[in-house]
């Protein structure tokens, strides 16, 4: 809302989200998802929610990413869509 | 503890108490049957003990607890309910004796389930008789449906199971219809307590609404009463053992239906409203057509029990017709027929069962000459058939006579014609059986003798009662007095 920086983060998050759904290599997807989480965390910070931003960076980006990587490691890497 | 207001409650206790006792003594048949007999005797005694109060015109009412806002689970003994309870509980005694002889004679399986279900049914029947409002009535009515089901499928043969399914297919939708009708009544009237002369009036809705409610009620109770075209479960249900057919399909279940018709016409709608909305003509015509058609169909049946079943359908419609005509005499006749038809039809079923136990014959065409070998049984059969035909000197005459008077009183001569026609038809499907039984011979029966005393005694007793009441209808139970009390309270006029 406060100008171009927020808008940029929004755009990046949106692109990351779409990419996460489009890319077929799931390990790459996990990385993109982490990036998505990171952009969202930045967004939170830009919106004045520093604590939520930290939380998202650690949990939303970090832990979730690791969880996905572990799960993909245990299952399969390729996805048909 | 034993006061006037608790008495209707105590009437339910013996049969209810008998259920766990019967189940608990499953391994000891003699003890188990003792419970049944004891329960039957004490139940009858409790009911009879209320006779003086009822004759004095008291209406005994006892409320147990609240079932829903403004609606209580309450029992109420008025002349009509009393009459029905008396018939059911008295005939339970004889049926119990008969059942014991029958199930042992045919070595039925699952006898414990049989006796327990029987006790359940009796509880439900007495409950129906003493219900003080429509919700209590519905409660026991559905309970009767449920507890009869195990008895219908008792033999567990294919025919019995499909008869059970047919029974449910008719009675469950009927129960729901009744449920809907009762809900509708509760919504429009805000009250469900039976009142002699009816509690609904034209201010509770338009004529069309009330006609629709009446139709729903009649479908609800009419299925059990076997009013055509809702009758076809009844002949199928004859797959049950004979004592079941005898008590339940000649007395308890179908009479519960007929009793329901009396309750709804006389105590919910009332003669005045039914005349106003014109619903009585429709009911009367349904009953009139049923009693003619059923008699005609009975002639075509070769299976004795099925013929009796169609005869039952016809005779229940006598009661329904009497209720529909709304005159004092017709109501007297309807109430009397509720009682008198019961003793007659139960005798006939007992005879059919006695023949089956001894010879395993079910078809009438095979019964020629049996009267010579089982004279007592067939004599009782003859008495009961003549009673149903309407022969003077047997109790069926008294009720038919009142009904005839009632139809004249209501100015509906055409129904008198139907009654007479039905009497002739009755004769034409019963008399050939008696004729063939006594005046033909069949060497196959040479080694056949009377059935065991457990079976013969009950049918002799019921036949004797029929004759005694034929000569003095008011003896003992004051049936005529009670019937007149009912007619007076409902129609507001004195009969005779």
């Amino acid at each position, binding site marked *: 809302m406060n100008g171009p920086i927020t808008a940029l983060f929004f755009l990046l998050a949106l692109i990351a989200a779409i990419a996460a759904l489009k890319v077929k290599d799931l390990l790459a997807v996990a990385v993109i998802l982490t990036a998505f989480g990171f952009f969202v965390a930045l967004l939170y910070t830009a919106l004045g929610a520093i604590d939520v931003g930290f939380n998202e960076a650690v949990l939303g980006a970090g832990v979730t990413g690791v969880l996905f990587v572990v799960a993909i490691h245990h299952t399969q890497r390729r996805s048909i869509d | 503890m034993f006061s006037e207001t608790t008495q209707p409650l105590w009437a339910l206790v013996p049969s209810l108490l008998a259920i766990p006792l019967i189940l608990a003594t499953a391994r000891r048949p003699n003890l188990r049957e003792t419970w049944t007999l004891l329960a039957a005797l004490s139940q009858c005694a409790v009911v009879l003990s209320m006779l003086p109060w009822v004759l004095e015109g008291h209406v005994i009412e006892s409320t147990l*607890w609240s*079932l*829903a*806002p*403004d609606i209580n*689970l309450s029992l109420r003994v008025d002349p009509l309910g009393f009459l029905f309870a008396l018939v059911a509980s008295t005939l339970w005694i004889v049926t119990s004796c008969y059942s014991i002889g029958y199930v042992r004679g045919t070595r039925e399986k699952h006898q414990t389930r049989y006796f327990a279900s029987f006790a359940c049914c009796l509880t439900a029947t007495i409950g129906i008789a003493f219900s003080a409002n429509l919700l209590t009535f519905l409660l026991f009515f559905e309970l009767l449906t449920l507890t009869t089901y195990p008895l219908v499928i008792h033999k567990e043969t294919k025919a019995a199971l499909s008869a059970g399914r047919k029974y449910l297919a008719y009675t*469950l939708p009927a*129960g729901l219809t009744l*449920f809907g009708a009762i809900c509708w009544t509760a*919504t429009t009237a805000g009250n469900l307590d039976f009142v002699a002369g009816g509690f609904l009036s034209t201010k509770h809705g338009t004529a069309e609404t009330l006609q629709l409610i009446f139709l729903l009620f009649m479908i609800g109770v009419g299925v059990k009463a076997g009013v055509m075209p809702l009758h076809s479960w009844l002949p199928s249900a004859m797959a049950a053992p004979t004592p079941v057919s005898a008590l339940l399909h000649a007395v308890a279940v179908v009479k519960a239906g007929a009793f329901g018709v009396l309750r709804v016409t006389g105590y919910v709608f009332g003669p005045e409203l039914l005349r106003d909305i014109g619903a009585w003509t429709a009911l009367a015509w349904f009953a009139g057509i049923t009693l003619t058609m059923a008699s005609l169909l009975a002639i075509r049946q070769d299976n004795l029990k099925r013929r009796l079943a169609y005869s039952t359908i016809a005779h229940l419609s006598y009661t329904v017709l009497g209720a529909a005509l709304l005159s004092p005499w017709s109501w007297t006749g309807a109430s009397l027929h509720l009682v008198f038809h019961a003793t007659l039809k139960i005798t006939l079923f007992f005879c059919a069962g006695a023949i089956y136990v001894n010879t395993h014959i079910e078809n009438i065409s095979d019964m020629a000459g049996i009267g010579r070998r089982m004279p007592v049984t067939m004599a009782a059969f003859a008495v009961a058939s003549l009673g149903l035909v309407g022969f003077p000197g047997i109790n069926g005459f008294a009720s038919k006579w009142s009904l005839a008077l009632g139809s004249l009183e209501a100015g509906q001569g055409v129904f008198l014609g139907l009654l007479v026609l039905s009497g002739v038809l009755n004769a034409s499907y019963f008399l050939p059986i008696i004729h063939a039984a006594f005046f033909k011979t069949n060497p196959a029966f040479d080694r056949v003798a009377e059935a065991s005393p457990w079976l013969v005694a009950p049918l002799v007793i019921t036949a004797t009662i029929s004759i005694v009441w034929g000569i003095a209808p008011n003896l003992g139970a004051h049936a005529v007095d009670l019937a007149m009390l009912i007619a007076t309270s409902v129609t507001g006029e004195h009969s005779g």
Partner: protein
Amino acid sequence: MTWSQLPILTPVVLLVGATAVLLTGRIRPSLAHRLATATCASCFAIAIALAVQVHHHGPTHYALGGWSPPIGIELVADTLSVYFLLVITGIALLVMVGAAPAVERDTPGRSAEFFAISLIFLLGLSGIVLTGDLFNLYVFLEISSLSAYTLVSSGDERAGVAAFRYLIVGTIGASFYLLGLGFLYSVTGTLNMTDMAMRLDPAAIPVRLAAVMITVGLGLKMAIFPMHRWLPDAYTHASSTATALIAPIMTKVSAYVLIRILFFVFGTSMVSIDLPIAQAIMWLSVAGVLVGSTMAIAQTDLKRMLAYSSVAQVAYIGVGIGLATPLALAGALLHVISHATMKCCLFLVVGAVELQTGNRKLSSLSGIGRKMPWTFAAFTAAAVAMIGLPPTGGFFSKWYLVLGGMATGEWWVVIFVLGASLLTATYFFRLLESIYTRQSSELAPIKEAPLAVALPIVILGLAVILFGLFNSRILDLFLRDAMPPGLVISG
């Protein structure tokens, strides 16, 4: 301690119990079950105490951490929440009592974990009914849902897929709820239920959007048609104990949230007059009743049949909510307790049958009624209640529903509700017939279930009948006071 602290006690006891069960499971596994049962028993006792307290002194408030509302989170025990708390803890206790053999069979060596998660599940549910804060409710909703997914996954080999589907649907439901909550917060600036009810402007567009979103979200959790697809799989493939625990109470608690938010926060007039939300719920529920009953007829697996009948029966509650008249809502609330008891009874019987025979195909049940007389006597009572015949609880909930429907002139609803009873009768009588009449030689060595398993079943079977006979006691003790503002049961 004082009586006003009772509301917090249930969640705390459950949390402590869960931890203790997990720890003792490591040391003495046999102790875990007893500890879990004891925890449930004490929760039931607390619920009773709370009920007495609320009955005599009115709603009990407890401010968490001493922060008074509307800033802090508040626990509120009023009649409605106490009623649901009694159902939850009572059912939980009865399921727990006989759970040991089945759990040991279904999740060998991990029964302590199973019991611990069950207790967390109950913690979530009791939190939902006790909280007075809408966001807190979301958190408890997710706690109970997460443990429910885990419990479901403990079943047979297909349970994982069923649980995953349940998880996706459940999370979408919760997210919709949260989204709706966001809208509400944006216009009112509060999350406290009572506070919000006072500040709401029913005409505001965000409020209306929120009402739709929250209804959709809870509809998913409650399995209202057409959002019911997850339920049959989840209930069928979960282990028998998990199903007996989840099926009777999980959807009911979602119904509680729906009632609480629609009638207490939004208000009756908004959801039934300003917006056609109640009508939508009603018609979807009618469809659910018909679809659920019809699908149940087609099933060959006992558990799956019961699962579809759950869809239909929960829809009855939906019909009552949708009619939004005092009597219909009373019918819905009465159906909560009666359906919880009968469905719990039926699923416990399934568990007992699986335990004794290792099979639950309908065709293999022929003649089992004679082998397990007590269990199946209770089963029969519950089946009769499902059909809605007197004198059981099922009959009377239908009675109030139909009266409520007639009062508002919704004749089609009345006809469909009554007609659906026939469908229910079709599959239950077919089942009863084969249970009691046909003979199967395979069943020869089958015996009645052990006492601890059979006893809760019999108690539930009796309860089904007693709740019917004494329904007006329930009505007087709980339902009259539990009615939302503006709806009064006359008489």
